[in-house]
């Protein structure tokens, strides 16, 4: 894309008042010689629901992976509270109660639903708490409860997405990142999914969500960033993003998704 829209809506309302929970400062990521992220900045405050929008290949997944520690930025920093986390391994990041629900769900398909949930609790030692949390996930997603002993690979796409989210919840995150959770799901499953996410958010979960379905993402979120070719080209409240015809058209296709 050659046209560069510089649409900057209002800055985050908390900026300068309270410190953000997550701040991504000017990160650049390379895969070999190819630059995929070019100075990305974003911040998320506790309890917020923030979305990242952008066309395919714009660097959304890479941004989340850089935060989770799966890819290392060549420059720039990622901080959680006051601690720098860009130097940590992913297995250390999740111990700080920041989880990523990866694109494509990535459940361990050759293990049972229950084993997947136990794997999500790998960082924990409190057996009683783990057991209670498995019950909790099964109540939140009754379909998983019914299929506890089934192999994850035998679940439908929507159920696998629930499992992927439930598995992340087992690490007791207070901050969840979700990468295209609706990808490949049926319309009914997508409805379920976003209802579940709204519920989580109502319980106080901070969220950073990447979505192709702009309309769903904008319904869920408070604020958003738009990525294009590895750069943040727009930011603002969801109302601002929605009403910016140029942004919607250039990066999000039909706003109705």
């Amino acid at each position, binding site marked *: 894309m050659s046209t560069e829209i510089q649409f900057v809506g209002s800055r985050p309302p908390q900026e300068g008042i309270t410190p953000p929970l997550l701040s991504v400062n000017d990160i650049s990521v390379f895969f070999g010689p190819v630059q995929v992220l070019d100075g990305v900045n974003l911040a998320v405050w506790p309890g917020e629901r923030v979305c990242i929008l952008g066309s395919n290949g714009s660097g959304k997944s890479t941004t989340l992976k850089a935060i*989770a520690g799966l890819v290392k930025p060549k420059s720039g920093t990622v901080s959680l509270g006051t601690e720098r986390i860009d130097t940590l391994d*992913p297995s250390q990041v999740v111990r700080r109660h920041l989880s990523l629900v*990866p694109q494509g769900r990535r*459940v*361990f398909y050759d293990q049972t639903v229950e084993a997947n949930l*136990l*794997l999500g609790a790998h960082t924990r030692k409190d057996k009683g708490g783990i057991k209670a949390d498995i019950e909790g996930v099964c109540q939140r997603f009754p379909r998983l409860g019914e299929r506890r002993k089934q192999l994850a690979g035998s679940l439908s796409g929507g159920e696998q997405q629930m499992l992927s989210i439930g598995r992340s919840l087992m690490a007791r995150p207070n901050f969840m990142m979700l990468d295209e959770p609706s990808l490949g799901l049926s319309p009914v499953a997508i409805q379920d999914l976003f209802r579940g996410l709204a519920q989580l958010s109502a319980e106080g979960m901070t969220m950073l969500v990447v979505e192709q379905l702009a309309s769903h993402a904008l319904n869920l979120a408070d604020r958003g960033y738009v990525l294009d070719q590895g750069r943040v080209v727009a930011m603002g409240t969801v109302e601002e993003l929605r009403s910016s015809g140029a942004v919607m058209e250039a990066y999000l296709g039909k706003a109705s998704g």
Partner: protein
Amino acid sequence: MKTFLQVIAIGLSQGAVYALVALGITLIFRTTRILNFAQGQILMVAVFVSLTLNQNALKSIPLPIAWLIGIGVAVGLGVLIELGVRPTLKHSGSLGWILATVGMATIIQFIAPYFWPADDRLYPSPFPNDRGIPGLGSLFSQRQIFTIVAAFLLMLGVDWLYNKTKLGRAMKAVAIDRDAAALMGISAKATVRWAFILSAALTAIAGFLVAPLTFANIAMGFDLGVKGFVAAVLGGIDSARGAIAGGIMLGIFEAALPQVLDLVSPNLAKYPLPFVFALFILVLVFRPQGIFGTAIREAR
């Protein structure tokens, strides 16, 4: 001509050992999707280190302690191989691990004659004066029973590890999807390291159990490595129970084969190995996932 029960006894005790070697191979495969071709050589080194410590002109070290040291050396070799294959694990599809493990096997096999003689050696058993089991006549020797029972307990242990422990689940998860496992807080490095350590220890013990039944010979690693591999593939290389069943089947098949061939031609009975491989190839053709295994799907 041996009786049917004698064949079963020999088949079970040999098969139990093949099963242990096979389990060592699957432990590593389950976590890394690579085959350690130096598995048999680790076994041989463990056997000869413990043998040399226990039986030498200078100072005899008691067998249990010699075993422990043998296990320690085996684990050291296992970790060395793990370090060798580590760079290739990051790139799925890389075949560098073949070079690393075959190279290690070759080096060990090349160095061994400088330390140990090439002829057959008697290996000590915890039952030096073996008079068989009272009541069973000459059917089972105490050594055979010891081998079968010890191997069986170890198999139960590995099955428990696979299905009931955190490490077992993590090993499986790392094999399927390293990144997703990392997101769960699982360190692939540590998990792979554990797989090599446990595998080497198991293989060393398999050596201690088989050597008193046969002989110790510096070529034994090749024979047992190949048969362990055959047993693992027969049963389904991703599953503990499959590897166990594969080992027992191979042991019994191998014990029964000369008896059957003898009926056809006494000359044929001298060369059972081609028939073992024929069985192996038949299984691979008709059930490539192993008799008990499930087909491995590629991770997305």
